[in-house]
Structure formats: structure tokens, C-alpha cells
């Protein structure tokens, strides 16, 4: 069986400032994060011959970055119209391009003015009934938080998951963000703060929802051979998966997403694909040292902890509440503060945090002896994740 294990490595990391008002264009953010990733690797634009990105029409294309940074030649590129099913899968696709010989060294980035530009949560969007939206928008289901609230409700009814347990996810992330200078929110958060925060869409409260953030981040990847001689110790891609289960629904419309066909809302396709993800990496869930789990809303990491095999189905809420995923627990989670507190760069900031932890340069938030990281994007009827190692 073909396997991409350890054939490609992350060699450069680049961030912009994360904020709620960048004061610059998305193009500026994209170029800055990409230049920072190249500089971090100790390479130049002449070494880069591929670019990959994902967006929902709120960002810039690979051609914009290639032209802006003055790449001599763009041998391969892809722009994936995607929600956070692109968060790790865009990296995975770029790695496959390197293995297939389409490019040698590829920038992968996500850039967005997620607060001052297009707000992915759906606030401020006009009503649209052209696509699959015609089956939900006329009834007031217009935003992504509502779709995820449907999931949370199912999980609460089926397994007894509580709002307190979802609050424990928010608190865990905030504790980590306090140690992270890049995080957009660093003030302490208590369970009372969570419980007293206003209901956005019942059962999701304000602090169950991630930040809306302006910013960008990028990684530079190349072949394992080339990676050996560069500035930082390489972070190898062990495995990755990206797909959808039986009757996942069409998932994305133009303005929102929903998946009424998906058989059981409280389960994700990760339940099916995790065995392939771990199997191709040659590990089990017990070998994972840090987990950067997509946390658009607090219910999402709870479901993922179950479906990626860290606890039994239905026990994700209790698992988080036990402290297992805090930085001193046995599975530190969202060590940068996650989308809930570091900021929402559509999940791509999880990839950089995973790589940073494995390089050992995460500063005050460094988890000791982190060797293997699981990084996930959005998981529902669709799912995507990668496993990285140092």
C-alpha cells in the first residue's frame, strides 16, 4: 500500500498578528504570513515552487501570493473552496503534490479578515435560498452556529453531555491562551463566566463560540530529504485523511452549511477514518502527546475526543471535565488556546501550533517531550486530520 509517512516535512512557520481589526487587506496578511514562513525556514522565494490555500471566497489565490512575493515560477498550486474540511487536508494535498513530483517546496496558507471582512459565523450575510439553503434558510436556519447547536443538542440528549462540560473546553483553551502572546483573548475565564454568558443559540452560549479573527498563518513544506539540512528540526507528516461518510449531505451551500441526511448528528466520520489515520502512521491514539482539535464550538472537541479514540463514545464531556486535556493532563489539547481563545484562522493555526510544539519552540506553552501531534480540522459528516511527529 502506498503511504506518505515521513516523506514530507514542515520546515517553516509564519504568522501575522492576530486581532479583531487588522487594518490591512487579506492580501497583505497572506503575503506577510507566507514571507514569514519562508524566512523562518531560512530559504528564499527562489526555493518555493508551489502554493496551496483554502477559503470560502474571502481570501486571495495562490497566483496573488506568487505574483506578490515574486516567485520565479509557480509549478503547482491549488485553491480549495472549503470550510474547515480544508484545514488539514490542504496541507495533505500539498504533501501529495511534493511526493508526486509536481513541486519541491510548497507554501500552504490561510488568510482572512474574519472579523472586519467576511464573518464565517454568518452574521451580516444576506438571506440566500438558491442552493441547499432553500431547505433551511426560510425557517431561520441561516448560520453555522445553529447547525452545530443541533449537534450539541443531540449529544446532550443521547449521552447526557452538559453545558458545564462544554464550558470545561472553553476554560481549558483559555488557560492555554493566557500563556500565548499571540492569542486574541488572554483574560482568565471561570465556569461562572461561561454559565452566565448569553445564549447565542440554545444550547450554545457566547463562550461556547470561537473568536472572530483577522490574521493569517502559513507553513512551508518540502521533501524529507531536503528538510534535513534546514534551520529547524523537521516536523514530519506521518499520515492524513480527508473524506466523508455515507450520506454526508451536500454540506456546503454558499452562505451556510447543514447536513440533515447524516444519520446520527452526535457522531462524526472521524469514527470511521481514525483507524486508517492511526494505522498509516503506525501508531494508536495512546501515542499522541498533544492534540490540536478543531474547536469552532466547544461541543466539537468533545465529539472528536470520542471519535478519535481518546475516550469511549459519549464520555467526551466527562473526559474534558476530568482535566485530562489540560496542559498538565495526559493529553494536552489546544495548547495555543484553540480557535476559542488564540483566534480563528479557520483551523490552520492548529497546524502551526502542532508543528511548534514538536519543534520544541512553543515557549511558555511548550509541552515537555511532545513527539507526536494529532491536528484536526472540522469533523462532522466530513472529516479531516493529520498526524505529525518530530
Amino acid at each position: 500500500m502506498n503511504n506518505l509517512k515521513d516523506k514530507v516535512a514542515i520546515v517553516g512557520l509564519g504568522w501575522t498578528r492576530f486581532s479583531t481589526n487588522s487594518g490591512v487587506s487579506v492580501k497583505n496578511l497572506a503575503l506577510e504570513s507566507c514571507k514569514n514562513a519562508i524566512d523562518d525556514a531560512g530559504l528564499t522565494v527562489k526555493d518555493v515552487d508551489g502554493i496551496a490555500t483554502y477559503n470560502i471566497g474571502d481570501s486571495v489565490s495562490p497566483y496573488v501570493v506568487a505574483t506578490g512575493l515574486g516567485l520565479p515560477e509557480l509549478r503547482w498550486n491549488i485553491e480549495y473552496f472549503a470550510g474547515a474540511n480544508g484545514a488539514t487536508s490542504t496541507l495533505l494535498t500539498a504533501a501529495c503534490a511534493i511526493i508526486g513530483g509536481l513541486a519541491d517546496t510548497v507554501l500552504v496558507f490561510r488568510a482572512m479578515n474574519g472579523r472586519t471582512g467576511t464573518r464565517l459565523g454568518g452574521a451580516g450575510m444576506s438571506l440566500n435560498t438558491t442552493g441547499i439553503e432553500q431547505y433551511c434558510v426560510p425557517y431561520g436556519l441561516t448560520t453555522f452556529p445553529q447547525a452545530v447547536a443541533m449537534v450539541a443538542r443531540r449529544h446532550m440528549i443521547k449521552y447526557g453531555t452538559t453545558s458545564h462540560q462544554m464550558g470545561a473546553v472553553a476554560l481549558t483553551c483559555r488557560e492555554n491562551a493566557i500563556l500565548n502572546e499571540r492569542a486574541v483573548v488572554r483574560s482568565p475565564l471561570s465556569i461562572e463566566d461561561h454559565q452566565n454568558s448569553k445564549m447565542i443559540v440554545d444550547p450554545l452560549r457566547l463562550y461556547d463560540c470561537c473568536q472572530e479573527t483577522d490574521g493569517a498563518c502559513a507553513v512551508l513544506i518540502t521533501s524529507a530529504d531536503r528538510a534535513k539540512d534546514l534551520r529547524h528540526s523537521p516536523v514530519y507528516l506521518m499520515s492524513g485523511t480527508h473524506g466523508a461518510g455515507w450520506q454526508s449531505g451536500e454540506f456546503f451551500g454558499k452562505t451556510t452549511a447543514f447536513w440533515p441526511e447524516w444519520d446520527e448528528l452526535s457522531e462524526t466520520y472521524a469514527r470511521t477514518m481514525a483507524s486508517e489515520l492511526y494505522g498509516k502512521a503506525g501508531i494508536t491514539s495512546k501515542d499522541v502527546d498533544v492534540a490540536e482539535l478543531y474547536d469552532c464550538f466547544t461541543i466539537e472537541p468533545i465529539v472528536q475526543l470520542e471519535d478519535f479514540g481518546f475516550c469511549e463514545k459519549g464520555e467526551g464531556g466527562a473526559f474534558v471535565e476530568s482535566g485530562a486535556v489540560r496542559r498538565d493532563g495526559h493529553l494536552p489539547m489546544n495548547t495555543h488556546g484553540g480557535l476559542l481563545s488564540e483566534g480563528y484562522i479557520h483551523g490552520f493555526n492548529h497546524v502551526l501550533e502542532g508543528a511548534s510544539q514538536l519543534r520544541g519552540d512553543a515557549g511558555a506553552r511548550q509541552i515537555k517531550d511532545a513527539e507526536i501531534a494529532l491536528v484536526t480540522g472540522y469533523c462532522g459528516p466530513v472529516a479531516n486530520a493529520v498526524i505529525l511527529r518530530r
Partner: protein
Amino acid sequence: MSMVYDTEHPVPIPPIIWDNMGYWEGINRHELVFQRCKECGTWRHPPRPVCPKCRSFEKEWTPSTGKGAVYSWVTYQESPHPGFKAPYSVVLLEMEEGVRLVSNMVDIKPEEISIGMPVEVVFEDIAEGLTLPKFRKVG
């Protein structure tokens, strides 16, 4: 309590294209219909050109019993859009035919909605050219 729409911010009328024509034609004559595969009898919704079970493109618009049960629901205390007056709930229903449908309940408070609650269809004329299937509690 039922969903209250603000006519200043009307819901756009879904454009009728080939795939959805029978569905909205049914709604407009106050009949809830779903696609059913002519070959293997599998129901499906939202409408699509082909059966995911047997791959047949032959289908017919078949009347639903209009009965189902609440599978999940959410409630907005503050509206995300001026077109809808808060508070309001959106329900995800499982119909007797096995398909799921997003809708609203009528004549019920959000806190009275529960999982498994049996419901039946009613039709609401929202605006000129837009009728929607809504649901009320049975019994």
C-alpha cells in the same frame, strides 16, 4: 407562538430549477411531497437527480403522510438576521418516510419542544409566492 417574519427583510423565493420543481409545486398546492425512487422505492430529501441506493434516475414526487417527530432543535434568543423575530426555534424532523426536514413549529413555546415529540404538517403562506411547510404538535 409561531415564527414571525419581518416583511422589510423578505425571505427570497427559492428559484425553481429542475431538481426542486416538484417539491415546491407540491408545497404551493399545500401538499408535502418527497422524491421516491421508482426502481427501489427509497425516499430522499432534499431532492436530487439520482437514487443513492440503486443509482436510478427514475423518480416520482410522492405524498408524505406529513407526520414525523422532532430529532433535534435549537432556539435563538436573539435573531441572527432581521428577517426573523426572536426568540424562535428551528426543528430538525424525522418524517415517517425516513427523511429529515428542517422547519419550524407553530403554536408552541420554544421550551415546550422536546426530542421525539410527534408532529404533523401545516402550511403557512409567508408571502406572495412563498408557502412553507410548518409543523404542529400532535396530541
